[in-house]
């Protein structure tokens, strides 16, 4: 089937308003959203958390809870869904209207095989016979590019990887050839290489079906990669809408510009370590709208913006923005990032690395308890002979996908996990493995910032207790001075002293992460291990946290061991990068060397997988094939060979390639000689498998 853009829209939303009735008053989640989606098109709905994008998705599916008050129109092929009785809606759900959610584990039934689940849908909705339904099920599994559909169909959801589960969800959504497919963050939580293949799949689906696709995400790169049209949501409204190319090239709403500017870029080296962050926070969703909602955070805001709610301005054919002064909005990339503060004193130029990790090995048994004691459980080699060093005042990033062992390294360094073998040295001296055995001074010098802002602070302790505890523990303050010391620390991370008496639940995710950073910096550490500190945060909040880390580093000469899966963030913040695959280093070196060819084939795949706003330096698309790696069953030879697009031959299966280092400190562990890699990667970018 060919794409049939134009024609009668599949979906036409007019002035949709959704208000939740809560104990604390009405919460206006969606405040007048209008959208049109023609068949065969992808409309990307992008926004940060709290922008109302998921509420729009649920409203479009007419699946909002009864506490929500919905007004306006949601016309699906001309038929208004709002106020339709559930009996009639059920006729549409799953058949004409289908939705794929972020978390496939909660949408698949754990006690049925995935094949049976899909067959059930086909029998139920399409009235097919069992044999016919089975055949169609296999066809659908093949259509979503599941390898070996007949085999996969017999498995239970927990036996599939996250990417495969999401493919099954998409197959289920496609089962009855829906006219409208709503995808709500379908790749959030997946590894980039898996995400890239799901995006490819969605891309190929829209070529093959006539369905309109509403794609909801917080990731601008995904929108750029996939969508025809984009609608940028802010505080329950559409700030700007238009064709993707036009909107990203010349946005006409200050929020769109700010959002594009605060993204760390993967395709070019950072000009400065600071990002132009969006100051301030979302407006209170309980407030009446009587001014421009972005005005308090907008550099261009005038008197009029604060007193009058802007209407919709047509800025170009098919493009519009909710801004009075859209003609004055500067193009992205022109806002100058603030400069870093002058460092206090000079960084020491000691040649001795601050932290050295020498041949670190961490193996553990997959099962716990008696099975493990009897030696029956398989051994997982989470980290296998990894060595790295961090010099004072630098950021070393450790990059890898889930299962690469990056978090294990961080946990061994902080002493939360005990390595199986290998050494951790600080200032050239080996440190005890258990934190309790480490001298107090050493514990003070080595701190940690975690990923999950919900769990990083004890929910039962006030911010004061959280921040002051390390100060007390290391004897830096007494009972009288601890409050003022904690207040100073909060000030350093941009929080007012009034936060001291609040509990973590009363803070936003970004604020909690600031408190966690304040706690880590309380004792003036020399090294802070940052374990994915921004991956649970919105991009605008991420920018402020990255800025905070960069400023603190400039002032305190702190070193960071920065664990991340996000290559854009790594390129922005790191001086040097280590790329891990299945617990082994495959590439390491100065950031700009690692981001320029030649690459290790795995790095090349990673870079090519990241959905970016512009074409990356990796041309073409290289996708990772083969099953997801299992650290319990390591392949012989090079761990990457079963999935390597540039596999040489039998040598890759036999021998572990050595890490060959150039005189500029760039190391690659690959059997392909460096010169050949460079030639291959600059000349013929797409190997055909």
């Amino acid at each position, binding site marked *: 089937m060919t794409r049939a853009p134009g024609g009668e829209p599949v979906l036409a939303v007019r002035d949709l308003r959704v208000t939740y009735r809560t104990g604390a008053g009405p919460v206006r989640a969606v405040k007048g959203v209008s959208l049109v989606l023609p068949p065969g098109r992808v409309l990307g709905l992008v926004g940060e958390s709290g922008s109302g994008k998921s509420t729009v998705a649920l409203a479009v599916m007419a699946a909002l809870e009864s506490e929500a008050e919905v007004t306006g129109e949601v016309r699906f092929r001309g038929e208004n869904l709002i106020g339709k009785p559930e009996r009639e809606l059920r006729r549409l759900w799953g058949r004409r209207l289908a939705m794929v959610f972020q978390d496939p584990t909660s949408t698949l039934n754990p006690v049925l095989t995935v094949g049976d689940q899909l067959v059930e849908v086909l029998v139920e909705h399409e009235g097919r016979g069992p044999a016919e339904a089975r055949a169609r099920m296999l066809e659908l599994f093949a259509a979503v590019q599941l390898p070996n559909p007949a085999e996969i169909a017999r498995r239970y959801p927990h036996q599939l990887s996250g990417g495969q589960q999401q493919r099954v969800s998409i197959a289920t959504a496609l089962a009855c050839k829906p006219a409208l497919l709503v995808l709500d963050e379908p790749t959030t939580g997946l590894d980039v290489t898996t995400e890239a293949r799901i995006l490819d799949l969605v891309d190929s689906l829209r070529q093959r079906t006539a369905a309109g696709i509403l794609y909801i995400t917080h990731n601008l790169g995904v929108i750029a990669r996939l969508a025809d049209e984009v609608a940028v949501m802010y505080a329950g409204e559409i700030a700007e809408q238009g064709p993707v190319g036009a909107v990203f090239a010349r946005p006409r709403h200050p929020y769109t510009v700010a959002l594009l500017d605060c993204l760390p870029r993967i395709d070019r080296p950072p000009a400065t370590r*600071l990002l132009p*962050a969006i*100051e*301030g*926070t979302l407006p*209170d969703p309980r407030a009446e709208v009587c001014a421009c909602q972005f005005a*308090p955070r907008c550099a261009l805001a005038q008197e009029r913006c604060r007193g009058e709610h802007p209407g919709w301005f047509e800025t170009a054919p098919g493009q519009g923005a909710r801004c009075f002064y859209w003609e004055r909005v500067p193009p992205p990339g022109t806002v100058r990032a*603030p*400069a*870093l*503060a002058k460092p206090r004193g000079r960084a020491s130029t000691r040649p001795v690395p601050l932290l050295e990790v020498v041949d670190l090995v961490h193996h553990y048994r997959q099962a*716990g*308890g*008696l099975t493990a*004691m009897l030696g029956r459980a398989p051994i997982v080699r989470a980290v296998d002979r990894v060595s790295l060093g961090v010099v004072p005042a630098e950021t070393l990033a450790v990059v890898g996908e889930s299962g690469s062992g990056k978090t294990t390294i961080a*946990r061994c360094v*902080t*002493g*939360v996990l005990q390595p199986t073998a290998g050494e951790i040295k600080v200032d050239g001296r080996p440190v005890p493995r258990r*934190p*309790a055995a*480490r001298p*107090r001074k050493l*514990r003070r010098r*080595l*701190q*940690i910032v*975690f*990923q999950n802002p919900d*769990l*990083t*602070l*004890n*929910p*039962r*302790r*006030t911010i004061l207790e959280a921040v002051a*505890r*390390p100060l007390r*523990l290391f004897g830096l303050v007494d009972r009288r001075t601890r409050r003022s010391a904690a207040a100073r620390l909060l*000030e*350093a991370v*941009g*929080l*007012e002293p*009034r*936060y001291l*008496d*609040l*509990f973590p639940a*009363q803070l*936003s995710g*970004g*604020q909690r992460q600031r408190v*966690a950073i304040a*706690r880590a910096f309380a004792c003036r550490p020399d090294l802070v291990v940052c374990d994915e500190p921004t991956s649970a945060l919105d991009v605008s909040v991420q920018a*402020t946290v990255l*800025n*905070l880390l960069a*400023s603190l580093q400039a002032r305190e000469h702190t070193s960071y061991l920065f664990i991340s899966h996000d290559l854009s963030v790594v390129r922005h913040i790191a001086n040097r990068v280590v790329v891990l695959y299945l617990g082994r280093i495959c590439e390491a070196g100065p950031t700009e060397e690692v981001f320029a060819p030649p690459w290790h084939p795995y790095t090349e795949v990673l870079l090519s997988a990241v959905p970016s706003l512009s074409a990356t330096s990796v041309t073409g698309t290289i996708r990772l094939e083969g099953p997801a790696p299992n650290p319990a069953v390591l392949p012989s030879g090079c761990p990457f060979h079963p999935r390597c697009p540039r596999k040489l031959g039998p040598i890759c299966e036999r021998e572990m390639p050595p890490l060959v280092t150039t005189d500029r400190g760039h190391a690659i562990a690959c059997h392909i000689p460096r010169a050949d890699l460079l030639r291959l990667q600059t000349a013929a970018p797409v190997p055909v498998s």
Partner: protein
Amino acid sequence: MFAPLGVPAELAPGPGARAAIWRGAEVAWALLLGSPAAMVGALLLVIHLGLAVFGPALAPYHFAQFNILHTLETPSRDFLGGTDQFGRDQLSRVMWGARSTLLLATASTLLGVGLGVVVGMVGAFYRGFVDELLMRIMDALMALPALLLAMLLLTTVGANPVYVALGIGVVFMPRSARVVRGIALSLAAAEFIDAARARGERGLYIIFAEMLPNAWAPIIVELTIRFAYAILLATSLGFLGLGAQPPAPDWGLMINEALPFLAQAPWLAILPAAAISSSVVGANLLGDALSDLLALRRRGETL
């Protein structure tokens, strides 16, 4: 100091810490008022608590006062609860008995759940061999039926209220340890626990200062439910003659003593039985309401 960073215009300040706790108490109170079952449960427990404190003062007679002229009488104006074969007023005996029964149940519940909290928390925090050893011991204890285990312990050490409390405590320990370990396992995986470990905090500090405060709510539910079982177990032991000895006004013992006269004087058994069941029902209703409240909190709907 960090001028280029800028301070975001943060959200409106939330209520202060103490205010938040008060609000929590208010919500709990509102829920109690909103749930008739919880109200009934709380009311029953308050009545029993009143009996335990003021029962001996309010009772018309001493529990051991004989009235030889009025044996096995039906309830009357003089003897509201009827009299037993010695002419003792059964109502007075039940009122006197509330104190010892509830005290016994409270002590054994606190002991059992307290031990369970320690075992569960320690196992979940240290994992590995310690956890394995503790949990297998708990399994072994749990393999014996509760009443049988308590009887076994009491027949070896002798019947005495202190031993009864100890015995019930030991019976409850593994059950509470299981519940607490489950909660503690998820807590021990939280990042703030890793942060504490990395700071080099001592294990006991982490367990009691970082983990325990986050487990209070489910532990309180566990306490109310265990309390109901403790009353049952304590009175069962009394009934079997392994607890208080005559002439003590123990509810279980009173039912036992009433057995020979069940046909002539059923009130002798009915009154203490009603006291037992109303206190158990009260504790159970309150426990259920509390665990509902907790489930609501987990869904983030209140507090």
